[in-house]
């Protein structure tokens, strides 16, 4: 079993402050890990490190191809949702249905509510076909129906050999391995 994501002795400094040091972490197929901790403890930075969008101060990060959903929507606001998602490719029609936004296909992205926009960002991850999913605060703006759909899809993904790394300050539904960051 090869790890989909591996941190070796990773240290990260942000704004002159050390967020964590000597962090080791391994995430293999079928695993899901929740990073928790208070505001400012470096949860989002850890996700961005895992994605390769930040470079570690020390240590090494190895990753397989991945998909990321964070607070940035990255969809063209003037386009209908379906066309905007189409730009990023993958099985987005199926993903939209799984997230309950299938009937919003023709609605311009700028008119989506924040919960619907969050579902759209998650749909891009679901559609990506990547084994490794990185989710930054996936429950933000989601209602209970959205959270249910998300946890069902995550369960299916993990069962199929995928892995999920999620950062959240609130408990995520289901069984998660935990990693607690301190402020």
């Amino acid at each position, binding site marked *: 079993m090869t790890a989909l994501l591996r941190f070796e002795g990773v240290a990260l400094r942000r704004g002159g402050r050390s967020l964590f040091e000597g962090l080791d972490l391994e995430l293999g197929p079928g695993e899901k890990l929740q990073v928790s901790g208070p505001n400012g403890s470096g949860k989002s930075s850890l996700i*961005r490190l895992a994605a390769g969008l930040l470079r570690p101060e020390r240590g090494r990060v190895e990753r397989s191809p*991945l998909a*990321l959903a964070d607070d*940035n929507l990255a969809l063209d606001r003037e386009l209908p949702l379906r066309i905007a998602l189409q730009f990023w490719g993958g099985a987005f029609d199926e993903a939209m249905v799984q997230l309950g936004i299938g009937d919003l296909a023709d609605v311009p992205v700028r008119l989506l509510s924040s919960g619907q926009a969050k579902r759209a960002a998650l749909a891009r991850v679901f559609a990506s076909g990547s084994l490794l999913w990185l989710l930054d605060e996936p429950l933000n703006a989601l209602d209970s129906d959205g959270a249910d759909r998300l946890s069902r899809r995550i369960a299916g993904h993990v069962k199929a050999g995928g892995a999920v790394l999620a950062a959240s300050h609130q408990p995520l539904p289901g069984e998660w391995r935990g990693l607690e960051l301190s402020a």
Partner: protein
Amino acid sequence: MIKALIGRDVRRGLTGAAWLPIAFFLLVAALMPFAIGPDAKLLSRIASGALWIAALTAALLPVERLVEPDRIDGVLDQLFLHGMAEESIAFAKIAAHWLIFAPLLLIATIPASALLAMDGSSLARTEAALAIGTPGLASLAVAIAAVTAGLPRAGSLAGLLLLPLAVPLLIFGAANAFLLEAAISLLLTAGAPFVAGAAIRAART
């Protein structure tokens, strides 16, 4: 992915604010007769230089919307995660910007030349010089846009950076020294994706 990104940026440009720099270009050209006076001889003598200055200032207008909106919205991050190198992203943005900016500028030069009492042959020379200069100008605009993305008052800073760097293009273009102008334009086009790519990487937080 490069093709898709170029197509997307061209579509966004054409349905968005791509017309503004061209309207601005024509407006600056239209101001010249008011500022200089209606003397056709004098106007036609300065016309080529005036059009260059109008083109440079027009090239400055779109700088704030070339990179920053995609940075702030996470599009640059997602493109990277979809396997695009920052240099390829920058190249696609340059190509898309040039595809809109250059034809519109060259078309707008025709009515602008009439405002400045240019004759046919000097219009042809100016069109050729602008055509050669546009790849360099578009590359410079995207590179500066990437360098200033996320900074406060990026628009004014971009002007201070872009205009001096465009001086070689201006000198050789306005003097109709086509080979030297082409060399400068090529140099800017070849270097800009790397500058812009590095800037996009450095701007990640």
